[in-house]
């Protein structure tokens, strides 16, 4: 399931329904990304996430489909916020449920790696020196490149 929203979410409530009652599930891996009070460019007092309505949902659906094609996943949840957020606030949640823990871990990491480089979100940080658009990081490209297009396990 994919959700795009301005408001905060409660990971406990969201995870409670992930794969609920599916006795095949042996492991659930979750990643939650938070706004830090400091980035590569300096102190951060707030962050605004802009996105491309329409394409964002489609791209997240493509990323979910790709993860399901690569790993035996029983359930997936992606929640991404947009709008203005303060340090300590949740930005994103990615969770995967699978019979096996390695698949859950790999699929969860794949989802966040691909999401960071493919889903049309842009961060604008506010700091003491004004606002600046966050630059894409080479590390994120490298992380996404670990999961090559032709690497499907099927």
């Amino acid at each position: 399931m994919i959700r795009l929203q301005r408001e905060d979410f409660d990971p406990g409530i969201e995870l409670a329904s992930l794969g609920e009652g599916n006795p095949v599930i042996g492991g659930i891996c979750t990643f939650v990304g938070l706004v830090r009070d400091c980035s590569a460019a300096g102190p951060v007092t707030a962050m605004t996430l802009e996105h491309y309505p329409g394409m964002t949902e489609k791209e997240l659906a493509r990323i979910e489909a790709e993860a399901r094609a690569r790993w035996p996943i029983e359930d997936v949840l992606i929640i991404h916020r947009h709008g203005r957020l303060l340090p300590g606030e949740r930005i994103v949640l990615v969770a995967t449920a699978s019979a096996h823990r390695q698949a859950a871990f790999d699929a969860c990491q794949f989802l966040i790696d691909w999401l960071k480089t493919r889903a049309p979100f842009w961060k604008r940080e506010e700091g003491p020196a004004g606002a600046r658009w966050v630059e894409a990081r080479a590390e994120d490209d490298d992380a996404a490149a670990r999961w090559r297009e032709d690497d499907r396990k099927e």
Partner: protein
Amino acid sequence: MKVLYFAWVRERIGTDCEEVSPPAAVGDVGSLVAWLRNRSEGHAEALSDLARVRVAVNQEAVGPDHPVASGDEIAFFPPMTGG
């Protein structure tokens, strides 16, 4: 066709969306960019370096050779920084 701009591309061009009607010779992303650069100084600056700008046609990421046609939704934006 409808052209959308996001993040600093939007700021430099000064609008988030415009309807444009390029001549028929504008058949792909590359030629559309060349044509858009002539619309204003902001367009010229924002679209000067295609290595720094990504393109989507009808909400799907594409390269500079991808065809464009009237009725398409074309978007220009920097590399993504979500998550």
